[in-house]
């Protein structure tokens, strides 16, 4: 149950892109075509699934206060958590390199489809963000960490494939010239994020709306998250539904 809850929460409520804006750089840069978006999304799922549990182990057995007590009683007071940024990013960079080598060796076809995206991923904020959120939310077991990495990856995958599909369609629409390209992508993403906010009630039964604003205590009345039936928003939900069914089939 705990696993199921974390799984859906990380995909929809705490979606990497729509709630925390993580990995926006590659999200905007590589979302012009659905096929490339699928490649990058798959690579992100893969790397997050590997690095989050790995960093969990590092955090648990090396970095936290008292984590070194397995070395002996005299190490029990050490607190190395200030080193976590450097250790996490080193793990990620190494893993990405390693994954690249392994995939190249054992599955050249997968390598050809993922290959160019893998090096990009080392500097994708979603990856480091996954590890840092894992640390700050004090996830309890390694299995939960694995689950968290995998499901946040899926959330990111959903987001980039959805926006790529919309961008492919929007090429045929008459967008005001200064908004073309980047501007309209920002605004669509904003609308999609508003749509995703409606998932906030999903795990609380809907009676208490939970809004995941990353900072600042939101004491204001929360407006019901029902975006106007804007054509692009409708399109977004359609695309998302398609994607969800795809995933469940797999």
């Amino acid at each position: 149950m705990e696993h199921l809850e974390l799984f859906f929460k990380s995909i929809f409520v705490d979606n990497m892109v729509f709630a925390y804006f993580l990995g926006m750089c590659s999200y905007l840069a590589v979302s012009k075509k659905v096929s490339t978006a699928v490649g990058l999304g798959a690579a992100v799922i893969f790397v997050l699934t590997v690095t989050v549990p790995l960093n969990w182990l590092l955090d648990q057995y090396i970095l936290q206060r008292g984590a070194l007590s397995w070395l002996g009683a005299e190490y029990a007071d050490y607190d190395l958590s200030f080193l976590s940024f450097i250790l996490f990013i080193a793990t990620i960079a190494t893993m990405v390199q390693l994954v690249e080598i392994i995939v190249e060796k054992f599955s050249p076809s997968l390598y050809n489809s993922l290959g160019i995206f893998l090096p990009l991923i080392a500097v994708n904020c979603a990856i480091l963000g996954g590890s840092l959120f894992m640390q700050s939310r004090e996830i309890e077991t390694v299995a939960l960490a694995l689950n968290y990495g995998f499901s946040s990856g899926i959330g990111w995958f959903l987001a980039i494939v959805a926006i790529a599909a919309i961008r492919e369609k929007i090429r045929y629409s008459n967008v005001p010239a200064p908004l073309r390209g980047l501007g309209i992508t920002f605004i669509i993403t904003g609308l999609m994020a508003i749509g995703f906010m409606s998932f906030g009630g999903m795990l609380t039964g809907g009676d208490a709306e939970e809004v995941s604003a990353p900072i600042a205590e939101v004491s204001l009345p929360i407006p019901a998250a029902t975006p106007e039936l804007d054509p692009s928003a409708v399109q977004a939900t359609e695309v998302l539904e398609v994607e969800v069914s795809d995933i469940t089939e797999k």
Partner: protein
Amino acid sequence: MGLLSKKDSKLILDPLSDDNPITIQVLGICSALAITAQLKPSIVMAVSVIFVLGIGNVVISLMRNIIPSKIRIIVQLIVVATLVIIVDLILKAFAYELSKELSVFIGLIITNCIIMGRFEAFALGNGPWRSFLDGVGNALGYGVILVIVGFFRELLGSGTLFGFKILGDSVEKTGLYAIGYENNGFMVLPPMALIVVGIIIWIQRSRNKALIEEL
């Protein structure tokens, strides 16, 4: 400007408008949006990035001839991570509340694409002084957008700036609230950051037609 030659001052001034890292180069958006619900964290974030990018560019530029090109990404990441740890520890020591509020987003400066982008595009090919100017210029361009977004989101969303109630008191109905003004609670929610940046891009590109993207 006696101190800076014309070419050098271009390095600082260009990123502020026509070559802005956020709205034109599309770099560093990740952390830019999440922390702009209020003005104060936006400014702290901007200052942190100015520090990290300014110093980081100089360090990378000094080491540019001894870094083997195959492992340069890892070297760059280590340099940034070290600088970010310094920023993080300083914030924890002198502004603990604020560092709690910024939570993981200080750490995410490491993977801020502006930083890697400037290292790759500029510091690896230029001397320390010019790299420093380029770093500060780009970080300023990033900061400007952050402050604009933070300003509007805090003003329209909570009616305050730096926490001061400048539009009057919403509970006691003074100032603007007396004539029926309401805060737009939507502005403090994450999605509005995207839409505000979208509007900034819109305004900027309608003023400078050369920036409009081709289909």
